[in-house]
């Protein structure tokens, strides 16, 4: 009994230590990123060890510099933001448009080759993207798509469709079939049932899938680098930040402002849909 209580006490203390450590480890870099984004570079170099900055040292010049267009002496992040927004939103819309019917079919309809198709999509999800990099790089260069956002969108859609089909499929399976049967007995066709009954019921999960797709498209780096590195006009925020960080002429705190700008949209969206997102990703985890 003695050993048992001792173990219990140690574990109770350990548990709080672990929680505290994990909170610091996960939150501190983001906090630090935010703090640095508001100070001039001299201030960081003078006192590199501090984690708190008084109000008198704060500045928003970093943000002004990073957002201003290159002609105005800035880093042109407004343009990068616009590029990223266009790419991500188009990819979300098209991916959902393509994957909703696909997921529905895989979840509900028995058609020839259904398992083959499911396996194919899973394989795509697991397939090394770097293997796609070489041929896509060449293909897009040959077709002249290399320096347009269009090529990037194609690749992102192909990369996100399998994941969203996987996520949406589980949601569709969770909707009781009887609801749909009731609608079809009332005379609704497949399309009417799908658009008036199934989709509204699945709307929350469609939103979280869309958010996940947005995240992937917004955060992506490799293909943006391969396709657009030579075209500063078309850089996405991720690529823009990475390209600018290579040079020494851009102060690090200005680039931290860029990092904040890149991160904030994701964190806001994630804050809105965190629960739905984690549930969507992990459904099926309990089945192994």
């Amino acid at each position, binding site marked *: 009994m003695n050993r048992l209580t001792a173990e219990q006490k140690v574990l109770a203390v350990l548990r709080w230590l672990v929680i505290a450590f994990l909170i610091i480890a*996960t939150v501190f870099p983001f906090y630090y990123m935010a703090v640095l984004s508001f100070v001039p570079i001299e201030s960081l170099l003078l006192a590199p060890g501090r984690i708190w900055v008084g109000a008198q040292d704060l500045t928003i010049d970093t943000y002004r510099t990073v957002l201003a267009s290159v002609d105005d002496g800035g880093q042109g992040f407004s343009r990068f933001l616009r590029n990223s927004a266009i790419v991500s939103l188009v990819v979300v819309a098209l991916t959902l448009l393509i994957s909703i019917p696909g997921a529905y079919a895989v979840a509900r309809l028995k058609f020839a080759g259904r398992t083959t198709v499911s396996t194919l999509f899973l394989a795509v999800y697991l397939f*090394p993207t770097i293997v796609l990099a070489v041929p896509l790089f060449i293909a897009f260069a040959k077709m002249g798509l290399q320096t347009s956002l269009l090529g990037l969108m194609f690749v992102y859609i192909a990369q996100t469709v399998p994941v969203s089909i996987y996520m949406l499929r589980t949601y569709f399976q969770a909707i009781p079939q009887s609801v749909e049967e009731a609608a079809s007995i009332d005379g609704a066709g497949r399309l009417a049932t799908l658009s008036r009954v199934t989709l509204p019921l699945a709307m929350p999960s469609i939103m979280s899938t869309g958010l996940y797709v947005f995240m992937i498209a917004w955060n992506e780096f490799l293909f943006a680098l391969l396709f657009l590195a030579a075209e500063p006009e078309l850089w996405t*925020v991720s690529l823009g930040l990475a390209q600018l960080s290579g040079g020494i002429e851009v102060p690090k705190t200005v680039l931290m402002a860029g990092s904040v700008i890149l991160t904030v949209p994701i964190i806001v969206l994630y804050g809105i849909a965190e629960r739905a997102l984690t549930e969507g990703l992990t459904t099926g*985890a309990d089945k192994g």
Partner: protein
Amino acid sequence: MSIQTPLSPAPPTKRAPTAKRRNTRARRDNRDGLVMVLPTTVIVIAVVIVPVLWNVVLSFQDLSLLDIRDAGPFQSLTMENFVRVFTAAGFWQSIANTVVYSVAATVGSIVVGLVAALALRQPFPGRGLVRAAMLLPYVAPVVAVAFVWQIMLNPQYGIVNVWGQQFLGWDRPIDFLGRAPYALITVIAFEIWRYFPFAFMFITARLVAVPRDIEEAAIVDGASALQRFRYVILPQLLPVVALLSVLRLIMTFNKFDDVYLLTGGGAGTEVAAVRVYDTLTGRFDVGGAAAQSIVLAVFLAVCLLVYIRFFVRKEDRA
């Protein structure tokens, strides 16, 4: 998932429809299903399957980026790329780096994720918030977080080095991303930091489904917390841990952006994916890049087969 061919006899239902009706229904399902997956299948074939096959062809061709414009798809094939890749200086080193990197990062992220999931298992005020915070590294853009790490670890003004010298008594700053043994350890730590939330999510989801009664019985029997973990909880988590291991191993093995952004592949961190990228854009060696990526894919396919052979079967039997 149950596999039924569309025309296999359905089990008798209460409202037994006539055979003919069932047949048209099945046929319609078949047609609708095919139509609905068609767009996905087309785009997956166009942007994934065809490029992969083309990559295989490329890997047997002696091409550089400069003559790619004139080269037809059926240029003469050669094994030269593979010979060159296997004998090139640094190739085996990059494979070794990749193996160390992916195994250590996978194991690390799963262990940390497991510890986090267990620590957050019992409810406490603010748990939801802590859980949400825990996922930040996973959802945040890799470029932004890699960049913050770079600044925090910088030898001149990085806060880790400043504090390390101030509070931990380091003699001199450590060049975490620029010196040989440290750089690889740092990119592994980064990967664990970024992906433990993934394991945390999956393990938490599975923990919720662990039946309480077995655990309560173990408590009644006087089992300690560690014993309960070892004999009750862990066995329940094994399938999800196995799945996570495979997923993470595959993903980390191909990892490009994290390493590229942190170190650019320098200081002993050149992993296979970064090497493929360098071969392609740095040396314009298309055939070599294709051949290396094929070697990567084959290695992964073998891992996946081993997993399916030894783990999936076992679960089915259990």
